[in-house]
């Protein structure tokens, strides 16, 4: 992958300018690599000649760990991959395990799972919104985003006691039914949140400097996005309207009417704005599901304390906040999975960096890296 153009023919006889290449280690400890990602950058002045993302600094072996733990305990492990949107990790594991065990999930539990996942998507995209602002140099949007994110986390705390690693979605349903005032509080939050989205647009999305930094940078054409296997907002920003919630609906997404947000040219700004607009869609979904929420059990029947599913395999995938998150589970009939594999969207999206960074400026590295919204916990697992 040599990117340097061929040396100019000697006939020009221009004095050759001698430039020196410099190797910069960006990370694993760097303010804006969003975790412990290391980027080996070779630069000529401010221009990137070569970029090598290096992962593995947060590897905790949770796929292997799951092979010695019961299915209930694996749900706890899932919280730690993508710690920004733990609900979705819980959900995808539970879906795969339920398929293995052939458990039916009651309707209310499905509704609650959907609501929690969408709230978590809002929380996750808010975090992205805030940190992306910081990456580009605007500090204030971060605190605006966190103000609202705190409220979402408060809602989670009310329902399950945790603010980060929820472990709320369990095999066969959810941990607990909603406390009484929860629905009212959730609606209060949604009403508060809708005008805030407009505020975010005024503050950051259409800021000329922000547009200048992001709209021309890191464009990913449609075919390349598909070839690289991108998913989630990163893929949709390139104009491919693929969303698991629409194409293979799970939980209660069939009940909700929502749009798949699609961008135009896959620039950093499109990736950013897809997420901002997705938050509005999440609000729509939550409102619809909450309106038709019916009382009922929240735990399915037939979940053993020590589940030992029959030998077999199952795959489940959902639309997590980063993309198409899938779990492949193999059971040999024992109390723990024989093998669990995670299709981690962050890891696959990361592949974009190596080629698309070449030729950009040092400042653009951060713009591109921030816009693909990786969580290192999920990249390394």
């Amino acid at each position: 992958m040599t990117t340097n153009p061929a040396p100019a023919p000697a006939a020009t006889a221009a004095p050759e300018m001698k430039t020196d290449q410099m190797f910069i280690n960006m990370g694993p400890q760097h303010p804006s690599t969003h975790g412990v990602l290391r980027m080996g950058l070779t630069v000529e002045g401010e221009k990137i000649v070569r970029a090598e993302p290096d992962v593995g600094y947060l590897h905790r072996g949770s796929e292997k760990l799951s092979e010695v733990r019961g299915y209930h305990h694996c749900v706890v492990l899932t919280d730690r991959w993508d710690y920004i949107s733990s609900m979705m990790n819980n959900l995808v594991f539970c879906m795969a395990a339920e398929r293995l065990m052939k458990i039916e999930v009651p309707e209310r539990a499905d509704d609650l799972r959907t609501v929690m996942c969408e709230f978590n998507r809002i929380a996750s995209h808010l975090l992205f919104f805030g940190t992306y602002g910081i990456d580009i140099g605007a500090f204030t949007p971060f605190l605006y985003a966190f103000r609202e994110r705190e409220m979402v986390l408060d809602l989670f705390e009310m329902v399950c006691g945790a603010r980060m690693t929820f472990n709320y979605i369990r095999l066969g349903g959810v941990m607990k039914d909603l406390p009484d005032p929860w629905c009212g509080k959730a609606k209060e939050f949604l009403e508060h949140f809708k005008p805030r989205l407009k505020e975010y647009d005024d503050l950051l999305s259409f800021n000329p400097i922000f547009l200048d930094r992001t709209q021309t940078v890191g464009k990913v054409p449609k075919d390349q996005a598909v070839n690289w296997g991108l998913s989630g907002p990163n893929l949709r920003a390139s104009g491919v309207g693929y969303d698991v919630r629409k194409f293979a609906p799970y939980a209660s997404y069939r009940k909700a009417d929502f749009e798949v947000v699609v961008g135009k040219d896959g620039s950093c700004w499109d990736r950013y704005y897809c997420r901002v607009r997705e938050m509005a869609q999440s609000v729509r979904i939550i409102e619809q599901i909450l309106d038709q929420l019916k009382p009922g059990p929240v735990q399915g029947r037939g979940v053993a304390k020590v589940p030992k599913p029959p030998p077999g395999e199952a795959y489940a995938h959902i639309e997590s906040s980063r993309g198409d998150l899938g779990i492949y589970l193999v059971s040999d009939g024992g109390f723990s999975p024989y093998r669990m594999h995670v299709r981690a969207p962050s890891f696959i999206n990361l592949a974009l960096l190596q080629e698309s960074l070449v030729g950009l400026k040092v400042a653009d590295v951060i713009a591109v890296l921030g816009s693909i919204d990786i969580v290192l916990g999920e990249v390394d697992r």
Partner: protein
Amino acid sequence: MSETNRENVKNSGEDSQGSAQAPVPGVAKPSIPAAAHAKPAAAAARPAAKPAAPAEVLPEPRLNNGRGRLLGSARLWPTEVWPNPWARPSFVRGAYWLAGIVAGVLLLGWSVGEISVWANLAYDWAMNLLRLRQVPELWAQGAWSAVKVVVVFHLVALAPLFLVWWERKISAHMQSRLGPMYVGGFHGWAQTIADGIKLMLKEDVSPRAADAWIHLLAPIVAAAPAVLAFAPVYFGSGLTAADIDIGVLYIFAVSGMTVIGIVMAGWGSGNKFSLLGGLRAGAQLVSYELPRTFSVIPVILLVGSLNLTAINDFQSGYWLGFIPRWFIFYPVMGQIAFVIFLIASVAETNRIPFDIPEAESELVAGFHTEYSGMKFSLFFFAEYAYVFLSSALVATFFLGGGNAPLPFLRIWPSWLWFFAKTGLIAFCFLWFRWTFPRFRVDRLMDFNWKFLLPWSFANIAFGAVYLFL
């Protein structure tokens, strides 16, 4: 035997409680035989202990107080606060404090009057005293100069302290938080002082890869001009430490020296991020010097002097009796010059949106990545001193310096007006910082060379037109 038995009973009691709260990971292990390592006696005691803590008796975990308020935290939601902020006593108290401070400052200014009057009294008294003591005239003048230096130095040293605190409070309120609230009692006013003491007490670290002398000298070279540049600054009628005729030129020349310190810091730190930051700073500061200086030239053309007192006096008086004759109110020329000077000043002080030399998200901390403790605080001091200086210059060049905006407001002295205007511009600096994202380095250069500089040239022509009116 009975001893161990009792222990086992206790342990198994805990165990059964643990398994009642099944969600706690690591405590309940239904799949792994829990008693595998225990003695047979423990296994025997287990069934006897079970009834002691039946699972049904355990209370439900309570997560909220029944009205939706979390038990773990007393945090209020914005939806509870925003509809009626005046219902909160702290909000009302804050408003009273703010009104009191403003009233106090106005009262102080009104009662003190022009400081130069008092200073002249002190000068006459001191000179008479020294003359009676038969001190030579040269020494006496030298002593008076030393007093002026000490006063200005303290002003320059204290302004950053105040500005930092102010910035933290303003940014906090812009971001719906409180900022420092504890140190010193009143809204954390002593926070910067405490931070300064902390920085002074820190170990002086210099990296092994650094060029020791350059690393040491860089903060001094960067911070010293920040103090020196204040010599001809006009703080109010008669309040100028050195009333020299080339004041404007002197300020631009001296403050331009800071870039040397910054490049030295970038080069001498032995760090690639510092190097990039230092080189960026060199390019940026040298480029933005040009439109900054050129934007003032129309002002100097009209006044016909480089002396800041002359520039200030030129702007006294009113058109039609109520429009102040400030340069910002000169049609076309004044506004363009003001905007260019303000933008270029923000760039000169390395602040967002032009903070690419220390761009945190890209270059860690830019040229001062490898600095800590007192050396770092010198860079920090220089930055805020330049914010103060730039605000003071904007106030003097374009906002009429110490002239009151309306004739009847002249009951307040010139130094109060000067500091009010300086504070207003400094507020704009802080406001920009907490609103805008950061430019990219090449766009920053484009903006300077392709936009600001041509317009500042054009503006000289606009200013020249006024000479013929």
